[in-house]
Structure formats: C-alpha cells, structure tokens
C-alpha cells in the first residue's frame, strides 16, 4: 500500500521494501517522529493524531499521483499514523523512488511539505508541566 492512515506502528523497513519493489536506482525516505518539544506550558510527552479519514485518503492519493507526474517518481509511500503516540514514535513516513537521486530527494521533500499543508490530519499535544522552578535563594554570606 502506498497510501495509509493507521493506528499501527509505522515500519521503515516495510516502507523501503515497498519502494524497492522495482529496479529504481534511488530511494528517498523521510520519517517524522514525536519530539519532546519544550515550551512554557511544559514538555510534550505525547501527540494525538486524528484525521478526516476519507478526505485525507483522497488528498494523499492525489499527492501520490502528482509526485509521479512531476518528479517521474516510480513508487511513493505516504503513511501517517493516528492515535496517541509517545516521544520518539514515528508519526509519518514519506518516501519516493525514482531512477535518479535528484528526483527521489526532491520528490520526498515535496511530498512531506504538501502532506503537512494539504492533508486533513491534526495533532493535539499532551505536555507535562515543567518542574516548578525553585527561586535561587541568596544564601547567607559566609565571609565575603
């Protein structure tokens, strides 16, 4: 399958196997992972991904077709995971195979940019509150 929205683990080896079914000389892959982003509201511990599934699948299929036409990509992988994912978990795998490296790399980049902009998928953050900061209390002077 080249287009997938799933609650199951995304596996890079399976994505590569899908892209390497032909005899293309070049395979490019991008994997997005849950990052422990820090902010004033704490550090991200999990992301919840949801999609408007039928619309998202149509959009992904359109991206697949466009990448073949524009970059001469032979095979495309557009896999996005849904549900609650912990830090370090792969949330998306995008890949592209082509006869030559320039097309595969450019296609891969194009696919992830367009996926983020055009496909109805959303993340919601879960953050852990930062440990309360202890004010650095001036300690009583000893000597000078």
């Amino acid at each position: 399958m080249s287009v997938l929205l799933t609650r199951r683990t995304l596996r890079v080896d399976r994505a590569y196997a899908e892209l390497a079914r032909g005899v293309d000389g070049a395979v490019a892959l991008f994997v997005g992972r849950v990052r422990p982003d820090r902010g004033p509201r704490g550090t991200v511990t999990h992301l919840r991904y949801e999609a408007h599934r039928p619309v998202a699948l149509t959009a992904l299929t359109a991206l697949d077709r466009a990448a073949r036409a524009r970059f001469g990509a032979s095979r495309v992988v557009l896999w996005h995971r849904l549900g609650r994912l912990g830090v370090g978990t792969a949330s998306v795998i995008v890949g592209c195979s082509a006869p030559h490296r320039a097309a595969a790399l450019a296609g891969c980049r194009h696919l992830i940019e367009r996926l983020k902009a055009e496909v109805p998928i959303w993340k919601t953050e879960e953050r852990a509150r930062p440990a309360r900061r202890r004010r650095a209390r001036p300690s009583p002077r000893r000597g000078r």
Partner: protein
Amino acid sequence: MARVRVLLFATAREAAGRGRLELTIPEAGARVDAVLEELRDRYPRLAPVLATSRIFVNGESVARRTAPLAPDDELAIHPPYSGG
C-alpha cells in the same frame, strides 16, 4: 426543516466539546453560512476557530460560504492542518 450532520476536528472539537453533532435548519435558507451562524450561537468559543477553518461538504472543499446545503449533507470543520 433540513437535518445537517457536522464533524468537528482538533481545535474545533475542543471548542465545541464534541466531535460530531446534528443541526436542524430551515430548508429555505439552508446554506453553509447558516450552519456556521448556528454553531457560533451554540458554541461561542468556536467563533475564532471557524474564522481560520476550511469547510468541507460531503468530502468536497467549499469555496463560498453561501453554498447551499441539502438534507443529510455532512459539513466538516477543518482547522489548519498539523499532520506530519
């Protein structure tokens, strides 16, 4: 009266406190903007979300908010996407 189903995602769902609901609106003026008006009335916190959302009807993007609706249409609120 026309029954319309509404799907709300991400920040829209959080603002409304629910992911799906049904509205009944007068069949005469059954347009996208009438549904949005009704949603803003019911869920005031949804107003700023709707301002930046795309609207889909039956899986198709709707360019104009004056687009007409038929009974049983499914209207989806898409806040800015954040996949990846």
